[in-house]
């Protein structure tokens, strides 16, 4: 018993850290404000808009992810692995760069409208609620696809072989293999995307067309910056946390664990895919066009100016790279214990999802209020940046790790226990090797995220540390849009490079 409790200590510490970061800071702001403020009718409509756009974005992302992931899982073609990796790119793209790309394709003077005009068809506008949703699908379809694809790949090939040998028609494969897998994968994917879209701020605004597309996060920003009304900001932040917890509870009711039993790591078999290739081919091509052209456009735009970037950009790049690596290590240190505890202890998963609900502004303010009496906040600029970056990555790492951990524990916990494998040894010989791929994937996401994150909670900013995304914004703010475009190219390249490096490392480390 004592062993069991001891093994939970790292998870408990991680959970406590996240709870303090999200709920502790919210409490600090509420105390400072002297209570929670009332919400206006406009705040309520912001809450409503936030909810439905998040739900619709998550639904669409998941709906598109299923055929795409299925096509990718059952077809083999040259460059498939690279394409799968590339299709993940939008998720790790810095928001500002992604919006630039989407506008270049879907904007008023973008390629799609040029084409429509040439064909004599009416043009379409990206600006409005549908623009927000389009952007959210663009960002999150990759996440949903990867999660569902992992699910597909996690169906042991023994089961697929069995189905093939029984000459299952498509409907039976769906019913006995695919549906149970989707049933266990999709609720998690939906929840993750719903929560990401819940706290979206910049996207909603630029493509939202106007104040009708006001999200809770923007309402918090307004309460904080425009009205200096901490009480209302705290109340809105609390609403955001409450929505997230409600969503988690709902997903708890819906979600089920996959139960395919263990496989023997036999190489996956094909042969179950229908003969007609074109629906899958169409699906993959359409998704590639949608997800890759905006990025390609932004990349192309900045290439020529790369050599002419000012030297401080390269310093900022070095800083960003260090921050990304450190924050990746921290993400894994928090996420892995939580993921290992999550299948048996619901609190671990709930704590891991908390950072998604946090308003960056409220968290930053709360940290500032807590730290201020003891230290000069500017001295904390780097630790605070690291911790907040890492915390934001934890929910995604968890979503990737937990299903795999569940499988691992179902398949090998008894064997490991009977051999008295525990602690570091178990981590080294069982957990990490079996989880190498999801760990690599999570690390890649964390690194890319931290690379693209603005990274400075402005209250802690020391005015010295400059990161690449911050430099990008400052270039834009100083009319230097060409240099900003080059900085964006650099940023995308590095974010994606980091992601690929970690993801590949995971594959390489996988002993299978």
């Amino acid at each position, binding site marked *: 018993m004592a062993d069991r409790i001891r093994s939970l200590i790292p998870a408990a510490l991680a959970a406590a850290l996240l709870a303090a970061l999200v709920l502790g800071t919210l409490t600090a702001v509420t105390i400072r404000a002297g209570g929670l403020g009332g919400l206006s009718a406009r705040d309520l409509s912001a809450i409503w808009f936030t909810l439905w756009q998040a739900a619709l974005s998550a639904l669409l992302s998941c709906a598109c992810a299923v055929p795409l992931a299925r096509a990718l899982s059952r077809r083999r073609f040259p460059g498939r692995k690279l394409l799968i990796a590339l299709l993940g790119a939008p998720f790790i793209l810095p928001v500002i760069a992604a919006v630039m790309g989407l506008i270049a394709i879907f904007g008023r003077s973008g390629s799609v409208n040029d084409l429509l005009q040439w064909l004599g068809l009416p043009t379409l506008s990206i600006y409005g609620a549908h623009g927000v949703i389009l952007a959210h699908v663009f960002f999150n379809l990759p996440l949903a696809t990867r999660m569902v694809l992992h699910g597909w790949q996690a169906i042991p090939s023994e089961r697929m072989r069995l189905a093939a040998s029984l000459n299952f028609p498509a409907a039976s494969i769906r019913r006995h293999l695919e549906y149970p897998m989707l049933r266990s994968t999709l609720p998690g994917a939906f929840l993750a995307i719903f929560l990401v879209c819940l706290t979206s701020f910049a996207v909603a605004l630029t493509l*939202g067309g106007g104040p009708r597309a006001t999200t809770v996060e923007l309402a918090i920003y307004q309460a904080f910056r425009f009205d200096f009304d901490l009480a209302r900001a705290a109340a809105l932040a609390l609403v955001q946390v409450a929505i997230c917890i409600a969503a988690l509870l709902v997903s708890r009711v819906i979600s089920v664990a996959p139960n395919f039993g263990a496989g023997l790591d036999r190489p996956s078999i094909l042969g179950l895919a229908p003969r007609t290739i074109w629906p899958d081919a169409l699906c993959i091509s359409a998704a590639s066009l949608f997800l890759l052209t905006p990025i390609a456009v932004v990349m192309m735009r900045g290439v020529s100016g790369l050599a002419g970037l000012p030297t401080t950009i390269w310093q900022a790049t070095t800083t960003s790279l260090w921050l990304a690596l450190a924050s990746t290590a921290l993400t894994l240190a928090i996420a892995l214990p939580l993921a290992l505890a999550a299948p048996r202890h619901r609190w671990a998963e709930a704590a891991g999802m908390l950072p998604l609900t946090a308003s960056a502004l409220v968290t930053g303010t709360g940290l500032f209020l807590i730290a201020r009496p003891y230290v000069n906040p500017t001295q904390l600029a780097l630790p605070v940046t*690291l911790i907040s970056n890492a915390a934001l990555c934890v929910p995604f790492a968890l979503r990737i790790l937990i299903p795999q951990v569940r499988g691992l524990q179902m398949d090998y916990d008894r064997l490991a226990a009977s051999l008295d494998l525990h602690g570091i040894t178990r981590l080294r010989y069982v957990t990490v090797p079996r989880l190498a791929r999801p760990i690599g994937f999570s690390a890649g996401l964390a690194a890319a995220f931290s690379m693209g994150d603005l990274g400075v909670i402005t209250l802690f900013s020391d005015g010295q540390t400059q990161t690449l995304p911050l430099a990008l914004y400052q270039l834009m703010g100083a009319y230097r849009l060409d240099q900003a475009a080059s900085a964006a190219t650099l940023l995308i390249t590095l974010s994606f490079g980091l992601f690929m490096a970690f993801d590949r490392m995971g594959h390489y480390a996988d002993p299978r």
Partner: protein
Amino acid sequence: MKTSLMLAGLLAATATSALAQDKPVLTVYAPDYFTSDWGPGPKIEAGFEDICNCDLQFIAGDLLPRLLLEGDRTEADAVIGLNTDVTARARATGLFAPHGQDTSTLSLPIAWTDDTFLPFNWGETAFVYDTTKLANPPQSFQALLDAPDDLKIAIQDPRSSISGLALLLWVKAIYGDEAQAAWEKLAPKVLTVTPGWSESYGLFTDGEVDMVMSYTTSPAYHIIAEDDTTKAAAIFPEGHYFMTELAAQLNTTDQPQLAQAFMDYILSDAFQGMIATANWSYPAIIKPGFLPPQFADLPRPAKTLFYSEQEAEEIRQEALDEWLTAFGR
């Protein structure tokens, strides 16, 4: 975990040791954009350190929220980069001391008598367009409202952007009680509302919108830095809204002489002579040579609109409600 903490510690340590010097330190809070290589911060720092025998340290970030949270325990000796829309709240903190400058020497289009907040540069709101793409720009604000709806503009959200708020007050100053009706006419032409100025301006340079809410001084950057004369600000006879950036010293400072010296430096020739191209705006004092010729040649509005601090504070909420209502339809 361990390595990342060590790394963080290491980075923090190098950051602080670089700052450690024997000279007295003047801590100045400034906005985010200020301290980048492309902001005015580095030039101001170099210029002041030449004369003060001190170490000027900018702390960039959420300027006023940070001051409000810190109250009289703040470490700031002075602030720079406040906007007129927050001075009422800043003043109410009671943290600020008079700047001690003669404001009658200022070259502003409006009279400035505030003895606490000192303007160091200024400009006016304007819609900027590309002369090669928009041959017949609206000749007045009214013409802009009456323009066909396929003239598309980008503006900023007044709740998150300083220029967005300035636009709100600009419309209110021209149209008064008719402001909401004006917004309803303008709304169909607004392609989108961005959180900040940068995103709007990016949409404009990408050719996504015909006009962007910016400043009368914006074309100067393109002319001087890029040798590009195709960008122009539409000048409206109804007048343009005045925007200025302000500095002030704190009465809680432990370096009162240095803080005062910094206030003096702001109106000095050295500061005023370089600010035009450092911050792409008009200097608070215009003497011969302070403005590059391209700057001096920019068309100037005949009329400047401005709400005093109290007026702005009183109409802010009402104007915002009108704006939200107009866009809600």
